[in-house]
């Protein structure tokens, strides 16, 4: 294509009002071009507005997005064509003719303050949200299903029941099997993503199977000052397992616990439900014999 410099319009059309489109519009507008920003959704922002954090830096998505949205919204040289779609493009570089269909919004954008009252009171929108496509029923062993369902039956209520349910499931199976979590999501209609976030946030819940006996070395300050690290090293060496791991034969899990509140008898370890005080390295070696 040959450029016809004399026909250059001096305006730019940006298609899509996501974070990329907004940044492009801002850069262009700042360089002196008139920008037309076309977005098919009812608002600029795009997918990033739905994200909590972004990969790989874990930065807050809204912190990146919000300043650009505000700048775009206020910029006098950016004309926002929201809820609009491109029908056709003609012309050549430097001089295009684009026809855009602006869909009926039935809201006067100059008067709207974005209060959201109309959404809350709209009956039709709520119907759309209720017609969610169903998921496949969760496949799991019958014995596990009975146990999980028994636990689920004993809880009624909203999202506040999730931690107590996870406590019970974790106690029953010694970890949180994926099928059990899917079953909780299915029966209690809590998004599986939320359940996973809760389950991975707390130290008490395990997403991997544990050994038959769980050894927890207390690494609270009092125990640490009195040599908990050396006790931990001894167990790791004797069992040839890393902290947080399970021995090859599945007999022992080795973990740390922040404080069991038995600081008077530090260093302290717990094996399953049993607590042992004044542990030293020799005793640690002997203790393993008791559980094998």
């Amino acid at each position, binding site marked *: 294509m040959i450029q016809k410099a004399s026909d250059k319009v001096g305006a730019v059309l940006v298609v899509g009002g996501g974070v990329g489109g907004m940044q492009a519009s801002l850069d262009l507008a700042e360089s002196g071009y008139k920008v037309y920003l076309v977005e098919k959704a009812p608002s600029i922002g795009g997918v990033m507005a739905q994200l909590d954090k972004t990969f790989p830096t*874990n*930065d807050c998505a809204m912190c990146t997005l919000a300043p650009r949205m505000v700048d775009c919204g206020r910029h006098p040289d950016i004309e926002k064509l929201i809820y609009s779609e491109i029908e056709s493009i003609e012309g050549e570089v430097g001089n295009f003719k684009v026809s855009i269909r602006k869909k009926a919004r039935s809201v006067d954008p100059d008067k709207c303050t974005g209060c959201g009252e109309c959404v809350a009171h709209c009956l039709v929108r709520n119907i759309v949200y209720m017609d969610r496509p169903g998921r496949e029923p969760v496949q799991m062993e019958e014995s596990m299903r009975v146990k999980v369902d028994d636990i689920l039956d004993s809880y009624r209520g*909203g*999202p*506040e*029941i*999730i*931690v*107590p349910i*996870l*406590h019970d499931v974790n106690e029953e199976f010694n970890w949180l099997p994926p099928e059990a979590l899917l079953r909780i999501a299915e029966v209690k209609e809590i998004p599986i993503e939320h359940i996973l*976030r*809760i389950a991975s*946030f*707390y*130290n*008490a*819940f395990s997403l991997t199977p544990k050994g038959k006996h769980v050894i927890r070395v207390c*690494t*609270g*300050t*009092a*125990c*640490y*000052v*009195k*040599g908990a690290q*050396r006790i931990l*090293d*001894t167990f790791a*060496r004797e069992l040839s397992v890393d902290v947080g791991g399970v021995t090859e034969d599945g007999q022992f899990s080795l973990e740390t*616990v*922040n*404080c*069991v*509140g*038995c*600081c*008077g*008898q*530090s260093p*302290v370890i717990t094996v399953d*439900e049993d*607590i*042992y*005080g004044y542990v*030293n*390295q*020799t005793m640690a070696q002997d203790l393993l014999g008791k559980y094998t």
Partner: protein
Amino acid sequence: MPHITNVMICTCTNCISNSALDIRDSLESEIKRRELEDDVLVVPTGASGLCVNGPILIVQPEGIFYQHLKTKDIPNLVEEHFLKGRPVKSLMYVPPGQDSPIPELRSIPFFKDQRLIALRNRGLIDPDSIDEYIARDGYKALAKVVTSMKPEAVIKEISDSGLRGRGGAGFPTGRKWESRRKDPRTPKYVVCNADEGDPGAFMDRSIIEADPHSVIEGMAIGAYAVGASSGYVYLRMEYPLAVKRMQLSIEKAREYGLLGEDILGLGFDFDLQIFKGAGAFVCGETTALVASIEGKIPEPRQRPPRTTLWEKPVVINNVETWANVPVIVNWGAKWFSQIGTETSKGTKVFSLAGNINNAGLVEVPMGITLREIVYNIGGGIPKGKQFKAVQTGGPSGGFIPASLLDLRVDYEQLDAAGSMMGSGGMVVMDENTCMVEMARYFVDFTNDESCGKCTSCREGSLALLQILQRICRGEGREGDVELLEELAEAIKDASQCGLGQSLSNPVLSSLKHFREEYEEHVKNKRCPAGVCKALITFDIDKEKCTGCRLCAKKCPQDAITGEAKEPHVIDQEKCIKCGVCVDVCKFEAVSIT
């Protein structure tokens, strides 16, 4: 007919870990065998305080204190003491460095200097028996407020007493209640924060295990004052015994009509339930705690607006704060405010642990000096070692060096020293503790427990940790110490919640008081305390070694060689610096340099 003698056996988690339950059983069967069951009653109690010497038994009414009991001691003890009336000297407490035992609890220095308010019933009642609590003036304060006091009067009493939050921040309790009372939204809630996450702290566990009803009564009074009708006890799952005792006590209180609808028949409704935590340190922060109860991700949020539970007003107080409330109501604000200092009233419970002779739970009036706690009550440092520092306030607190031992303990003084009151953990450290390593330990803890919301806390703690780790590995660089300081200040300024704002305290306070130790690690690649593995070597002193072969047998690497009765040698190539040889050597022949 009442029993002549009551035997109070401590059944807290500490003593149970030392087979206190077996001792109770053998005591009961032995008493039966001797046909003494009409005269002697065995009462299981909560922690008596001197946890390090558990299992503990106190014979009342004489108050004879027995410690370090074993099951095999029991037949002799029963025969001598209960049958022949001769207390057994060999099982009594002997002060460090002395020969003669002290038979009576009240004469032991550890107990003599304490003043019990929150722990008023410890070692005296069976925590599972509501009747015994009632016999010790229990629920009298609740009856008093419900029958004869207006809610405003209760709040005024608490305000006048000068009670401040015992969870660490020290916010005036009366002012907190007042603001929730004035909040027009209903229903209102009261919450007991028993998510005692500070490592090295066990006050809340002990209070709940020894006297759960004092917390329930305090909460009921608080609920009456602010107009709440339901409440939660947010309890750590790491404390199974406390959860069990709390649950049982709530059920008992309901049965007696002290919880539930129409309490004491006077039209006041209040009920309580337990919410079991799930092992997240950050849940001790109030905004995270309520998010956890609501089933949300327990990330703290910016305050103001004030913390709410399901968008309704909520009073959140620590276990110890609640346990103080009934006493204040019974004895009056004037009495309470006479104890303590100008700004910090009443007493504070500390859990004394680490390198100290009398590790355990102490309750002392505010304004007592650290020296009194460490030396008079705590009995000093074991094995005649040097005191180096005391760490208060857990991972959010700081180190207080020997030069500040005469500091008076209250909220303001501890803050000024670069530490904080915190929930009351007090870990004593001796000369063999490396301050750089301890700072690394705390930052490792907070880095692990950071919820990850704020960049300054999430990434900042990691950066701090990496620098401290390389200093401990002997790879510290010139300028690292200054970098630590700058970074620590920045994290303090930029973080949102208490966890982030205070995580640099251990680093800053150790830098302030033990800077030369950092310099020694960085410049001379030496760990003066002999802790950091990369910077130390183990050697056997030829003069002291008797060739007993014990260390050679225990060494996991077979790094120690030598003929019997000849001095041994450590092969430095094989040595992994585990320290077993130091532990087992009876002649102190292994030296660390």
